[in-house]
């Protein structure tokens, strides 16, 4: 099993959920994060009460889903399709290994639960 963790723009969420649903993925989790990347607040100078400041951290969503090894590439492809806008700040996808998964409701383990 692999966890696919991607940082995406909040506006992409709806499309992403639709995509995931079509792939019939077992599930996913979404977390509100603030991110810092190549964007680095470039060009985004705001002013609050006369003080100029750079918004260094952008609101992003972290979407995590655990999938069987076999599905990893398909999922990546679909995520790219759903979230790519070709402009800086689109985000990243990270993949890492999950050793075990357990469904709390039943206690069962393995690929079947995800």
């Amino acid at each position: 099993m692999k966890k696919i963790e991607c940082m995406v723009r909040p506006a992409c969420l709806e499309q992403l959920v639709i995509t995931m649903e079509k792939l019939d993925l077992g599930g996913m989790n979404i977390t509100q994060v603030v991110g810092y990347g190549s964007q680095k607040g470039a060009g985004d100078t705001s002013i609050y009460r006369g003080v100029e400041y750079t918004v260094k951290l952008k609101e992003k969503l972290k979407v995590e889903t655990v999938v069987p090894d076999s599905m990893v590439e398909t999922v990546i492809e679909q995520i790219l399709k759903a979230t790519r806008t070709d402009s800086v700040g689109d985000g990243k996808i990270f993949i890492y290994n999950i050793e075990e998964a357990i469904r709390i409701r039943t206690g069962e383990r393995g690929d079947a639960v995800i």
Partner: protein
Amino acid sequence: MTKWYWCFMLTVTLFTFFPKQALAQDLVEITTAINTVWVLLAAFLVFFMQAGFAMVEAGFTRAKNAGNIVMKNIMDLAAGSIVYWAFGFAIMFGVGNGFFGSSGFFLSDSFAHLGLDIPTPAFWIFQAVFAATAATIVSGAMAERTNFAGYLCYSVFITGIIYPVVGHWTWGGGWLDQLGFVDFAGSSVVHSVGGWAALAGAIVLGPRIGKYNEDGSINAIPGHNLLMAALGVFILWFGWFGFNPGSTLSGMDSSIAMIAVTTNLSAAAGAVLAMIVSWLKYRKPDVSMTLNGALAGLVGITAGAADVTPVGAVMIGLLSGCVVVYAVEMIDKIHVDDPVGAIAVHGVCGALGTLLVGLFATDGGVFYGGGLALLRVQAIGVVAVAAWTLTTAFLIFKIIDATVGLRASSEEEVEGLDITEHGSTSYPDFVPLYGKSFKIKKTS
């Protein structure tokens, strides 16, 4: 010429001039004072409705646009006050023809022709907060996607022209007034004008991104703070006690008490019925519909507050509370995106309330043996107000759209108008954490 004659004459003279005069003058001063105090306090209550509108509109929309909504409301009031002082009031109440007035710009000329029992400034401020109300109704329907500069342009026009003209027709001695049109505190003059302008605005703007799907189905975009919206409704209800009873322009008029009662009963009935209808239709009593129902009852009773009985008020409230639920749905179904329900509440229920005066007015209403005469006049008024407002508002919005720009870009809309239009976030500590937006160094 005997002494008793002089004595008699003295007595009579004293009675005729001295005390009566002094007394009459004192009494006039006193009644003027009572009226002035009453109208001013009512105006303050109506003023406070601006806070109510801001909270309702912000509460019923998303957090990323809360600051923008606040700005629009404040400008409706602030710019509106200035514009209404410069132009609007003159057009509405200046000497003129049956269609508009044309004297008294900048409060300069005399308004003696109005025959007021209160000082002109007291009348002005009462009217100014009414104008601001009409203007601010629109901001709700156009929320979350309007270019701020474009909105400002519109705001100047509604307070300066659209609203004052209708006001002149009805309250300024214009043609509707002469027809016998009854709109006591402005179901049509204020609320329908706001509601129809809102309709024009929402149509010209188009719906928010993500509101309607390609297949025509509708998405819900829940408002970000129901508690604030509820506070707003309480504030509006509170302010309405200035809006309706204050419209007697006289604290000496003992009907103010009954007007307060009809206002309250109609609002109550509206809330109760909107709740019941939503319960039946959706299986659960809907909070936001109930809130809208209270407002619908208030808008509905505004035209007839002084002319109906408590029973009539309850009936008007029940009808408004029921109609508003269906109106909200219907407007959504024809894909006019009104995030806060302003068109349904103010436009539809304003027109409804105006018509219902023709049924429930104790003097002239159908149900009180008055025949159809009044109802016909009311219908004429409703249609005239709708026609005028929709036409002019539509035109103005189109012109703004073609020049200044009326709609925010889709990037701005997605990002939220708070950041893109005003460079600020309304809740920096919450979405999602402290210190999110700090400056490290200008040069870094």
